[in-house]
Every structure is written in structure tokens, then in C-alpha cells.
């Protein structure tokens, strides 16, 4: 053990010297990405980009929130060139600190206007719809609610699941505040709580809880169900939308922006352009089951096409979605956070 420790000490000193001799920033032709999107969702795209453009990519994976907080802590000393996040809230937090640079018109013009923020510092890269998931054996499809306001009915007492701590849910709530006003939204939250809505930590936990019989319906994102069905074709859950224009139908986006101090702006721009290319948007649609941000993509048969989902969802500005403070206060006041 003694010699072990001595050996270890020498090893560690060598380590340190080695590591110290490499500066953190690495070479110029390396793009450093902070990705709040999971490796599974993005790695194939990143490999393809490296091959096509001959640029090395270094990725730090993490949750969007943790990375956003880390970016705020790092400030201008961050080694990151771009921040790719799972939701508008995380991007908004970085944008508000003035850490993003304005994107050129060639990039923002590829997208429909509502898919970049009005400051044009970040663009959406894919979208996901809010849906209502339900148990196939326990819920009669004709009895499904048409709007989220029906969920406060005693008929649904203790049968509804939601994830108040989840970013997608909070974005939905923010959009509801914009559409229906703060008072209505707060009242809805309180009524839901009184009606025994069950809180879960995330969307997949919600679907598993429906399958396990704990709850009968849940407010969740559209693509988790497809993942469960991939491994289990008998998964006893299905999903649908509320009626057109209901706040329950909103579309959330993942997005990407370039940091002010990016060492490698050209590569960063190339990467964002690459993500918006038709072929790669098609990949996201087919393999990750998310919605593309372009309108010229073919959807998998049986899934709601992009144009329809845009019609179903209420009109919104992404900047509105990025301001979460009031939503969080509301959640805290109603005792849900």
C-alpha cells in the first residue's frame, strides 16, 4: 500500500505536468460544443459533420440547465463555441446575459420566422409537441378531454400525471400565461392540484406510470411514446392532441446559438448551417422522432405532419418562452416547486 501510494503520487505529478502543458482551448480547427441534447440524439450528426467539413468537434454533454448555469458561471472565459440546448428557457438564460452573438441573415432566413428568437441570437434545430398520453385499457377515447381545462373535472380526479419540474412543462405553462393570462393559469394550476394531479420527475416516468396503472392520462412530449414502442410494441399507452389552438398543444424547440467569445466562429456557423440542411432535418425526423424546423420534410406515415401541428398549436414568440421567472414564481406559489 505504501509503495502504491508513492507510485500513485508520482503518477499524479506526471499527469499534472502533462495536462498542464496542454492549454484548454486546443487547436483552432476544433469546434467546442456544449450540448444539452443527449449524445444519442446528436452523435451521428456530429460524426457526419466532422467527415463532411473536416472540422474536429469536441462535445461536453450535460443537462441543458446545468450547462446554462455553468456557462453563466464561466462568463467570457468559457471554452465553448456554441451552446446547443434542449429548450428555449436555457437558451434564453444565456441570451439575457448577452453571451450570444447575432446570427447572420443567411441562417435565420432558412427558418419560418417563429423558429428563431427575435434578437436573432439563436435558431431552433428541431421541435417537439405537447400531447396528452393515455392508457389504452383504462381510458375511453371518446371521453378524452378536448382542452386542458377539462382536466380539472372531477371525472379526472387523481388520474392525471404531470411533470412541473420539467423544462417542457414549464415552457407550456409560460405559453399558457401568454395566451390565457396569469390569473387563469394560476387558477388552473391550483384546480389541477386540488383535483389530485400527480407530479413526476420527467416525461418517461409519466409514461411508465400510466403503463404501471398509477395514473390514466398525462401531459407529456410527443416522442417518448415512440421510443417505448420501439422496444415494446404492446406498450399499453397511446397519445393524442387537444383541440386546435388549445394551450395544451404547444410546440417546444431545441435550439443553438454561438457564444460571443467563440474562437472558431466560421466552424460554428458551418455547424449550424449543417444542422438546418434538408438531409439532416430529415434524419432528425426519421430517427429521433422530433419535428423538423423546415417545411419541406417528409413525415413518417401515421404521424401528424409539421404543418398540421403548427396549426394545432397556439401562436407564440420564442422570446416569450424564454422568460421563465414568473412561471416559476407561479409554480412556487401554488406549492408545486
Amino acid at each position, binding site marked *: *500500500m*505504501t509503495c502504491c*501510494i508513492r507510485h*500513485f*503520487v508520482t503518477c*499524479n505529478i506526471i*499527469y*499534472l505536468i502533462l*495536462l*498542464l502543458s496542454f*492549454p*484548454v482551448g486546443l487547436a483552432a480547427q476544433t469546434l*467546442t460544443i456544449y450540448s444539452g441534447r*443527449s*449524445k*444519442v*440524439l446528436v452523435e451521428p450528426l456530429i460524426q457526419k459533420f466532422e467527415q463532411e467539413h473536416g472540422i474536429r468537434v*469536441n*462535445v*461536453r454533454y*450535460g*443537462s441543458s*440547465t*446545468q*450547462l*446554462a*448555469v*455553468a456557462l*453563466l*458561471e*464561466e*462568463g467570457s*472565459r468559457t*471554452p465553448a463555441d456554441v451552446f446547443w440546448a434542449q429548450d428555449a428557457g*436555457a437558451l434564453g*438564460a444565456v441570451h439575457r446575459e448577452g453571451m450570444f452573438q447575432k446570427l447572420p441573415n443567411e441562417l435565420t432566413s432558412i427558418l419560418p420566422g417563429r423558429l428563431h428568437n427575435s434578437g436573432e441570437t439563436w435558431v431552433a434545430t428541431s421541435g417537439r409537441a405537447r400531447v396528452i398520453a393515455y392508457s389504452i385499457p383504462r381510458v375511453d377515447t371518446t371521453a378524452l378531454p378536448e382542452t386542458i381545462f377539462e382536466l380539472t373535472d372531477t371525472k379526472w380526479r387523481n388520474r392525471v400525471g404531470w411533470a412541473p*419540474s420539467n*423544462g417542457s412543462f*414549464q415552457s407550456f405553462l409560460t405559453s399558457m400565461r401568454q395566451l390565457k393570462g396569469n390569473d387563469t393559469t394560476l387558477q388552473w394550476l391550483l384546480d389541477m392540484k386540488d383535483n389530485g394531479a*400527480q407530479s*413526476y*420527475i*420527467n*416525461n*418517461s*416516468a409519466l409514461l*411508465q*406510470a400510466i*403503463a*404501471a*396503472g*398509477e395514473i390514466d392520462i398525462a401531459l407529456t412530449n410527443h416522442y417518448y411514446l415512440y*421510443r417505448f414502442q*420501439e*422496444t415494446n410494441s404492446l406498450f*399499453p399507452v397511446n397519445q393524442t392532441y387537444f383541440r386546435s389552438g388549445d394551450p395544451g398543444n404547444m410546440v417546444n424547440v431545441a435550439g443553438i446559438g454561438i457564444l460571443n467569445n467563440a474562437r472558431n466562429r466560421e466552424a460554428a456557423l458551418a455547424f449550424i448551417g449543417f444542422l438546418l440542411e434538408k438531409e439532416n432535418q430529415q434524419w432528425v425526423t426519421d430517427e429521433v422522432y422530433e419535428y423538423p424546423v423546415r417545411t419541406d420534410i417528409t413525415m413518417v406515415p401515421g404521424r401528424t405532419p409539421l404543418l398540421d401541428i403548427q396549426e394545432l398549436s397556439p401562436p407564440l414568440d420564442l422570446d416569450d418562452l424564454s422568460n*421563465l*421567472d414568473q412561471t*416559476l414564481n407561479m409554480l412556487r406559489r401554488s406549492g408545486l*416547486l
Partner: protein
Amino acid sequence: MPAILVGISVLVPLLYLLLRAFEADSELSMELVFRYRNLELLYNTLLLALSTLLAGTLIALPMAWITTRSDIPGRKILTLLGVLPLAIPGYVMAYALLGFTGANGTVAMLFGIDLPRLSGFSGALTAISLYTFPYLYLNFRSALAGLDPSLEEVSRSLGYRPRVVFFRVVLPQLRPAYYAGALIIFLYVLGDFGAVSLMRFETFSYAIYLQYAASYDRVYAAWLALMLLTLTSTALVVEYRLLRGLFFHRIGSGNEKRANIIPLGHWKWPAYIFVTILVLLSIFLPLSTILYWMIEAFDAGQLAGLRQALSGSAMASAPAALLASALAVPLAYIGVRHPSRLTRGIERIAYLGYATPPLAFALSLIFFTLNAAPILYQTLSLLIVAYALHFLAEAIGPVRSSLYQASPRLEEAARSLGYGRLKAFFLATFPIMRNGLIVSAAFVFMSAMKELPITFLLAPVGYETLAVNVWSYTAEAMFAQAAPYALVILLFSTLFVGLLFAKEWTSR
């Protein structure tokens, strides 16, 4: 000197939190601190921590006795099985229990019995007890193995029955080990997030996570973290009071001798059943869940990624384990041999680092390195040091308990023979501490293997570990892809712990 360094580096997070907390205007702060909800959280947190402690004791004490003192066959394997639950990430254990119960659960599918789905307090308690009891188990085990058997023999010769000897002679001597393990479990529960969040039981750490997750608001989260640290300090003071004035080493010359093995007799079957149930629940259940996920869709293309992640995990966790045990020695040593308010205080400070929520700990290190030593930022060395400092508390307990069993006389004798202070320590005391050091390294290694927020934020860009992969796949509900990574964590931990204990076993 190393003690002071450790003290300073663990205090950094505390200062950081204070800095952030007082960024808020005082009115808002008051509102955040004196919320009714905080009382609820406090109640939940304490309830869970104390219940887990009780459950852990009820599991660990019999298990430790059976594997050190009884004639049960396969004691080495059982020892290993008693340690391994530590290698199971909390959320994997929670998923396993959740998947096991409920209408769509394994029990319902296989046997048609509808068990109520575990959740809330009972769910969190079951999950956390099942993977934290090894903290107590290993502490008990090294204490039992290191006890001077002559005390027991004397009591026996005075006519006491074995059971009386156990309660009157053995149990009291286990106190330092118990306090050490209990403190770690208590602090662990305060900080656990994975299991409580899946079981939907709201504690302080859950609230802190939600705060960072939701609002990018570092102020309220800092306040919550500080409240958590106050709770920790209270626990530390209690432990300090309890430990004061204890000493358990031999005073006379004594003899190097192993404790007697006690035949189980008609207690054989209860012991078998106890051990079997424990192993089934704490290892077989999560393991079979992982294997079940894996069978659903195994992709051989993942193997390359697995190897990379494994080397990433090992290169950070193993040095961190050794560094933490090395740092624990001087800290525990001054605490036990030169007890004073100062030395005890320094030793206790390490526990504050452990109780700081990992996310806050990582953020504070970002803040600190960027301002003080930017060249170290996002290097492997920083990650290793961060692991070692964060998990230092886990390493101190076992080292300290083993120090209580090493008589200072031995060292004094060595010094009187002309050896220097250090040399005397390594010749006389160090060999007795070896058991404790092994346990320390095992604790830190397995904790570091599972660690998430610190790895996310402090690892070099592009650095991958097994745990990060497990988390990232399960977060996307891709359990089949997460399974091989979880399995490798288990296998590799078995290997590492086996290696540590192999030294102990062969040297006997």
C-alpha cells in the same frame, strides 16, 4: 499541512455559496428562507435520513457479524456482495424497484400478483437503504475484524454467554465505526437526488435540483444548499459529542490473534435466509433489471463507446480513490492522536464538502479555478481533485475507526528505537490502518464511478464516463442502450473492490 490545505479547499464551496446567497436583496432572502415549504422539506429530509439509518443498521450489523464471525460458507463472496450495492447508481435502483412493482411490473407479469407500485417515502426508503447499507456494513466489518479477541475471551471465561458478550463487550466497541458509517449514510441521504426524485419524495436536495433545473437561479439554490449545510453541521456536532473521550486500543502488549469463529448452529437457516433475501433485493434485482433492458435490444456497435467510457471512468475514479484515502490519513491521524478543537474542526470540515450538493460544489470549483488557476480548468487533474475532495468524508471514517484500534504505544516504541516520526508511523501504525484504507478507497472509487454533476461540469470537454452514458440514455428512455454501461460499472467495481480485498485476504 495537508490538513490545512484540505480545509481550505473544502471551504471554497462554502464561501461560494455565501457569495451567491447574499447576492439577493435581504427581503427576498428572508422570503426564501422562511417559507413554510422549507419546514416540510426539513421534515421529509430528516424522516428519510433517520429511517434509512435505522434500516441500514438492521441490515448491516447482522451482515457484518455473519461475514466476520460466523462459520457461514463463502464469507469472502458474501463480503463482496455486501459491498457491491454501492456501485449501483441510485436512479438505477429506483428504476429497478419501480419496474418490479405495479400493474405493469415484473411481479405482476410473472406471478400475476398486483403489488402496489413503490413510491413516496416507502419507495425512497427501500431504494436508498438497499444501496447505502454497505457504508455501515464495511465500517462494522473492519471494526469487527480489528477487535482484540482477548476481551471477548476474558468475558467468556468470566461466565458470560456469547449473546451477552456481544451486547456488553462487542457492541460498545463498534461505536466509532457505527458513528462513521451512520454519519456518511445520514449525509448521503441529505444529498441524494436520483432515488428521491424518481420515487417522488420531496427533500432538500430535490428542491435544490429543481431550483437549478428550473430557474437558472443560483440564489435560491444557494440558500437551500446553505440550509442543508446547517443541518449537516448539526449532525457533525452530534457525532463529535458522541465520539468524545472514546479510546479502544489495547493498553497492554496484547497479542496478534484472530477472533474465534462461532458456529451458527440452529441459527444457520435464519442467517441463510437473511443473506439470500438481502442479496436478491440489493444486487439480483437491479442486475436482472439491467440485463432485462439489455436483452430488449443489444447493439454490438456500442462496444467501442463502452471501452472509451470505461477508461474515462477508471482514469478519474481510481486516482481519486487513492488520493482521497491518502488525504484521509493525516486528517484522521491528527483528529484521533492530537484531539483538540482545531484538529477536530479541520477533520469535520471535510464532511461539509461531502454535504455540499454536488452541483453547487461543481459550480463553486468552476468559479474558483477560473479566478485562481484558469490553466487547471477542465483538466483531468481538476476532476480527480474534485472527486477526492468531495468524497473525502467517505474516506475519513474507516481510516479513523482503524486508528482507534492502533495503540499510540507502538509508535512511541518505534520512535524510541530511533525512527523518525514518519518512519515510525509507517512502521507501527500504518499496517494496522490498512483495512481502513482499503475500505476508504473502495467507498470513494464507487462513489466517483457513479458521480454525475461534478463529472458533467468539471471533466475535460469530450471526456466520457460510464455514469454519464447511463444517465444520458435513461433520460431519453433508451433503457436498452443504457444497460451495457450500467453493467460495466457493476463489473468494474466488482473487479476493483475484489482487487482491494484480495490483498487483505492473501495477507492473512
